[in-house]
């Protein structure tokens, strides 16, 4: 064991930090760090900056424009980007569709889509979930019927993050209703501008509308947009879900939120003293900080197993469970910093360029909303209950 960051890793970290410091536009950084709503253009702008540097796709192989970094480097990169207040790199193209195309796509599909993903000329979204399916993904009902040189799609997808900004969606569709649930599914790429695609926003608890329902009504898709073989989509779906395991720990987000907690607890006061000096609050921060430190060591330890080419088992679920819980606890602490000012909430004040007044300090206004929004992370990506089933299955061997 060598339980310190190596010289190479430290200099890599310094290089990333320096770059992000210099290149991240200040207006975007400020919006991100104060929980204002981040716009489509902000995400695209940051992705293009990374792409020009050659860092657009940290996890892709070099031949497709990736970095060739190992898992540790990717964690360092993600952490530094988050620490500096960069918007997250949208995963739908980079971590989901891209790797699937690299593994299963035709040469034509790779040539057409991969460069546009890395440059973010396309905004992808994920058509997996359906009403009534949820964690039981194999019960999905959206139908794709082959008619000559095209498929005709009918059905509904839901929880589609950023579908309102997307021009492409990758979908799991049922191509053989007679087969058993996992067997008759295919993986299709659908142009969102196709006739019959309708996007309807779903308003969430924080009054944001990042997720949508997507209705597919007689949507025609050329056969060339099938990825892999017909009826073999389930293997692709599983590949995709298991792909980017390190992101699931949310370590960059955890650290950013923790820093925000400490900053705000240092500037907000209780009885004339910084809140961080209040013994009870200080103890709560400390306990969570300890959890976070150990969570980071879990991540480093587990990804080092990955780079040793050993398969990662239920440890990935451990990272997901702890990462989501710590992020939720951190936003709860943030809300508690607001105290009575957690009660008034003006969601319009979070919009770009808004001059709407808030009750207390504008920095306090989004905190309760953040807490509510963060409830989703123990639900998506396989609910934490499902993760626990995976762990239990692994250790009990039942």
């Amino acid at each position, binding site marked *: 064991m060598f339980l310190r960051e190596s010289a190479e890793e430290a200099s890599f970290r310094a290089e990333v930090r320096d770059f992000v410091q210099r290149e991240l536009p200040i207006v975007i950084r400020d919006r991100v760090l104060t929980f204002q709503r981040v716009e489509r253009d902000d995400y695209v702008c940051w992705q293009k900056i990374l792409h020009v540097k050659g860092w657009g796709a940290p996890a892709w192989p070099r031949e497709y424009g990736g970095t060739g970094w190992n898992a540790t480097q990717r964690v360092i990169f993600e952490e530094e980007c988050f620490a500096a207040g960069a918007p997250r790199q949208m995963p739908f193209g980079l971590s989901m569709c891209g790797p699937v195309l690299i593994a299963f796509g035709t040469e034509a599909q790779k040539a057409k889509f991969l460069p546009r993903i890395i440059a973010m000329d396309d905004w992808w979204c994920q058509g997996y*979930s359906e009403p*009534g399916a*949820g*964690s*039981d993904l194999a*019960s999905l009902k959206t139908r794709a019927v082959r008619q000559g040189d095209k498929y005709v799609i009918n059905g509904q997808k*839901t*929880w589609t993050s950023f579908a309102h900004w997307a021009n492409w969606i990758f979908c799991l569709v049922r191509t053989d209703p007679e087969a058993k649930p996992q067997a008759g599914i295919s993986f299709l790429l659908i142009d969102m501008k196709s006739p019959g695609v309708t996007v309807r926003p*779903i*308003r*969430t*608890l924080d*009054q944001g509308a990042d*997720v949508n329902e997507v209705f597919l009504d007689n949507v025609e898709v050329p056969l060339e947009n099938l990825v892999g073989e017909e009826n073999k989509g389930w293997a692709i779906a599983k590949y995709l879900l298991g792909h980017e395991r390190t992101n699931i720990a949310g370590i960059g987000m955890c650290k950013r939120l923790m820093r925000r907690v400490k900053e705000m607890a240092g500037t907000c*006061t*209780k*009885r*004339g003293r910084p809140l961080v000096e*209040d013994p*009870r*609050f200080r103890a709560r921060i400390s306990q969570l900080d300890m959890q976070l430190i150990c969570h980071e060591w879990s991540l480093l330890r587990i990804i080092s197993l990955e780079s040793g080419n050993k398969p990662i088992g239920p440890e990935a679920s451990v990272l997901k469970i702890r990462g989501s819980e710590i992020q939720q606890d951190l936003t*709860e602490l943030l*809300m*508690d910093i*607001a*105290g*009575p*000012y*957690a*009660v*008034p*909430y*003006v969601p319009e004040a979070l919009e770009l360029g808004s001059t709407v*007044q*808030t*009750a*207390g300090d504008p920095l306090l206004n989004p905190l*309760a*909303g953040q*807490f*509510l929004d963060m*409830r*989703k992370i*123990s*639900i*998506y990506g396989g*609910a*934490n*209950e499902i993760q*626990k*089933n995976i762990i239990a299955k692994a250790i009990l061997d039942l």
Partner: protein
Amino acid sequence: MDFNYSEEQQMLTDTIGRFVEKTYDFESRRKLAKTELGFSREHWSTLAEMGLMALVVPEEFGGMGGSPVETLIVMEAFGRGLVLEPYVGTAVVAANLITEAGNVAQKEAMLGAIADGSRRFALAALEPQGRFDLWDVATRATSDGAGYVLDGRKAVVLGGDSADTLIISARTSGRTTDRVGISLFLVDAKAPGLTIEGFPNLDGQRSAEVTLSNVRVGSEALLGARDAGYPSLEWAVDHGIAALCAEAVGVMSKLLDTTAEYLRTRKQFGKPIGSFQALQHAAADMLTALEQCRSAAVMAAAKVDSADAAERRAAISAAKTIVGQAGRAIGKHAVQLHGGMGMTDELAVGHYFKRLLCIDMTWGDSDHHIEQYAALL
């Protein structure tokens, strides 16, 4: 002890339960919350006609002279429907405070107006620097011959933008965090120099930030003894807290009913999701927490009128802490068990959760009340 309702109390339970069921279906509530006022004047009148505004007003001033148990009954029902009318500020806090601290003239003028629903009150007690400390009062009231001049700022005044009268705590002597030297004033919402800025709350209710700049009031505006307003203020807020605890029980019980129904009907992997043991245990945790809260609310109602201030304080702080923590836990479970649907604005679940959060953040979160309780050990 007897935990059963009397015949009259049972009638009250049924009456108010019918009102909430009839008036407060979720869609009507949603529409109401989006109006500028944030609640319904007609509902307010109806509640007054039903006698609910007069519930704790003494009989000699046109009220029913009800006990905290009657308030508990009303508030639990309000919780089940997420009732928006700012009832607590007027019918619980102001009615109790004026009864406790007011002189005969004030009682005659104010209590009748509370009882018949013609005047709404809001308590402006918190300040931006004070978090939950009611004794942290920087707002000043300076003697001015015939009366007082008030200057300062009041924070998160619940129902403050729809009140006719504000009850304002202000410092007549002492330093900012002294418990002596605080006086209470009845100030007309239209008084010159008073700025009331209304804001929507997380839960669909409303609050206001209030600025006082050279607000002149006569000496008759002083409520209770000069410099000695704090004990009555704390007493009245404790009645508000007891009411909120009861409301939270109603919110939680409806949330548990809704969640149980979802677990029974929503199917995954070919069976109701309620058949999975992990989810059963979460539901069991919710019920366990709810029962604890029910006890806390009853205890708060039993002790809130205690002559022993320490006994009252301990019971109220214990109840508020238990309810606040359980409210968060039950709300989190409810959202989680509903999966993505629980995250949507469309479903009632999140709105019940948000009300529980706001109750926790009103008049002291659990950190604040654990500290209060610990000081008595």
